[in-house]
């Protein structure tokens, strides 16, 4: 054995002659150190460090998970805000559209009313025209019958008097016309009443 401390005699001798050399390893020293290091190493490698690493990894995962969750929540909130803004815009657009439609409808209604009024007016005008036409025809019919009788009367009058001089002639004509006029006035006033009622 190289170790000077192996036997009591060796110890005594070593201590007496020279102090042991610090740099020279002794087998028991190395063997016991090896045993201790192997035991510490085994426990650290197989149990303690894996356990700590697992816990640390789990913590890291948890923290990262928490961060991811927060990010997701933020995203969701942003999404909701966007959606809300969109809905608001849609609602505004809807309101504007409705207003626009109402305005358009109003315009249409006004136009319709206007055209209806126009129609009514034109119908009234037409009715009036038709009335006037009818009256005119009535007048023409009655005139035609009257003209015949008047002409006959005039002719008889002319024949009844001698129509030599022009003075007389014109007198007769004037008288005829006056009478004719008077007759015309009479018949007009007779017909004016129903026309006035309609007008």
């Amino acid at each position: 054995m190289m170790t000077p401390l192996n036997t009591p005699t060796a110890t005594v001798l070593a201590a007496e002659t020279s102090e042991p050399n610090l740099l020279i390893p002794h087998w028991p020293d190395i063997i016991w150190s090896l045993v201790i290091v192997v035991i510490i190493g085994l426990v650290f490698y197989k149990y303690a460090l894996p356990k700590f690493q697992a816990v640390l990894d789990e913590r890291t995962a948890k923290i990262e998970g928490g961060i991811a969750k927060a990010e997701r929540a933020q995203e969701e909130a942003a999404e909701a805000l966007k959606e809300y803004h969109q809905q608001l815009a849609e609602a505004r657009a809807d309101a504007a559209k409705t207003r626009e439609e109402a305005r358009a409808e109003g315009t249409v209604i006004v136009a319709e009313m206007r055209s209806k009024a126009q129609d009514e007016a034109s119908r009234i005008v037409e009715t009036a025209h038709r009335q006037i036409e009818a009256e005119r025809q009535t007048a023409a019919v009655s005139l035609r019958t009257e003209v015949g009788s008047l002409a006959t009367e005039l002719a008889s009058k002319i024949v009844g008097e001698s129509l030599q001089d022009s003075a007389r002639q014109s007198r007769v004509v004037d008288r005829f016309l006056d009478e004719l006029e008077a007759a015309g006035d009479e018949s007009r006033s007779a017909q004016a009443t129903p026309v006035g009622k309609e007008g």
Partner: protein
Amino acid sequence: MACPPRSGAPGPYDLRENPLSTPAIPLLLAAEGDGEFHAPTIADFFPPAIFFEGTPFEFNRIMLVRVIMAVVLLVVFCIAARRAKLVPGRFQNAIEMILDFVRNSIAVEVLGQENGRKYFKLLATIFCTVLVMNIAAVIPFLNIAGTSVIGLPIVLAAWTYVMYLGAGVKAHGVGGFLKNSLFPPGVPPVLYILLVPIEFLQVFILRPATLVIRLLANMVAGHLMLAICFTATSFFLFDSAGAMKLFGAGTFVAGFAFFLFEVFVAALQAYVFAILTAVYLNMSVEAEH
């Protein structure tokens, strides 16, 4: 309780009866009777066997300290792991702070996201082991770092060594790894006569050796400084006369300062060991360095 004589012929070791007795603290509590100042020696690091003496499984005080610290580490981590919840409590937060530190400031910082995750277990185990073994140096009644005897640094460095060589071979194949490691690119070929042996020494011998020696030397020196300060305090307070006792106050303050410094060194060396492991892994895995 008397402390073992530290020079001359060793008497019967009281330590054998009480393995938790330490060279430094008991001196504060009980002065040595002979009125002489005994400086701590490196015999502190080679205490007598407790059992299995003379076999390859010889168990001494240093081994006991290591076992105690390992048990404490495992119990703390197993309880924390079993109670690990999504929303951490104060205890779990503290453990997670350490692991987060290893992952962010060592693994990912040096190796990048993917490889950092791949080697996180290795780096966390090494960091925590070195840290608790170092911190034993300032824990009352333990008072010596588990890493202040060369065995544990060797085992840890060997683990790192195997891991970074393995990572290099896995990433580039044996030839590719050797070419990457021994033939740094962008150098005139003539210089390879010089560079290849240097790089070989560097990769295959110096890296693990410096890992071992850096850690060992720091913890040995820390223990010796603490022990000197407290044995001196004890000597001045109990074994010296008159005004000399005042020196005790000075050495006690110095001891307290070294105590705090030792806490810092314990954490720093754990960090250095882990970050160098990460750096070596990165150099092996990287395409070119």
